[in-house]
């Protein structure tokens, strides 16, 4: 009945609540890898859109059907690569810490992540084929940010602030359409790498 016992009780309660309701195996390394892939994708997208133009003069984004297909392939490829790398590194981490990769927490995390993500992805596809190409990059940032904020209740709490930053970048991108690609590279590339390293250091490999 001492103070220490109650302090320990509270600590236990918090730990059990966290472990039973949040998916904590998420690997920081997967964030770093996703960031690197995104930077690569941004570079390829840049090459595709501004192909053959003088680097220092006025540049015009060249978008025709062929470019759209190339951009879509780059996007889908990056998504698949990042997703597989994420699963791989998270699985390694889960194994090391004796945690299950696929449990009710993981399922809840994924569902809540996917709802805004699929809605946003669908909207972007619609806009792309209606010719509103400039809005696609900032909108992917915006919806990705919303997805992260929505899913952050079910995983490590840092994900929430990452989501808020992505939302801010997305909104800036909607205003400054010309900076869409560079903001996209910051949001999906640089931020992922920074957060990945931070979480890798904080939570271990």
């Amino acid at each position, binding site marked *: 009945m001492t103070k220490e016992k109650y302090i320990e*009780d*509270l600590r236990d309660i918090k730990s*059990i609540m966290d472990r039973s*309701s949040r998916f904590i195996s998420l690997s920081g390394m997967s964030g770093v890898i996703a960031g690197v892939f995104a930077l690569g994708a941004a570079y390829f997208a840049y090459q595709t859109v501004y192909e053959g133009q003088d680097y220092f003069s006025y540049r015009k984004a060249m978008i025709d059907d062929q470019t759209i297909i190339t951009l879509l392939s780059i996007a889908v490829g990056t998504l698949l690569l990042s997703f597989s790398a994420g699963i791989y590194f998270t699985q390694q981490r889960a194994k090391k810490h004796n945690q299950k990769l696929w449990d*009710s927490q993981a399922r809840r995390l994924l569902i809540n992540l996917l709802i805004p993500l699929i809605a946003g992805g669908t909207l972007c596809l619609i806009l792309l084929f209606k010719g509103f190409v400039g809005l696609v990059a900032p909108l992917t940032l915006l919806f990705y940010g919303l997805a992260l904020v929505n899913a952050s209740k079910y995983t490590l709490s840092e994900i929430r602030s990452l989501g808020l930053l992505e939302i801010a970048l997305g909104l800036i991108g909607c205003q400054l359409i010309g900076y869409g690609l560079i903001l996209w590279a910051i949001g999906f590339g640089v931020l992922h790498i920074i957060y990945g390293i931070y979480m890798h250091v904080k939570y271990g490999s």
Partner: protein
Amino acid sequence: MKEVLKDLNKAFENKVRLGIMSALVVNDHMDFNALKELLDVTDGNLASHLKSLEKVEFINVTKEFIERKPNTKYMATKQGKTAFVKHIKAIEQLLG
């Protein structure tokens, strides 16, 4: 002081029972094996504590079959949750 002590619940004095309630307050329901893994206790130990929480009607038990295997789900009752929250508030007050 006496008021505070009244809210501390005997049912939660035990670590396993406190753990079970902590998990069931933040999850709609959990099955036996998930609780066992989470709290790292033996079958018998967990079962007896679940029984005692069931007896005071702090948790509800539902049995169903998934692919012909029995699956027991546990969830916190309304009064279980209320008692748990009161218990935590009392601890916080004691700690000042």
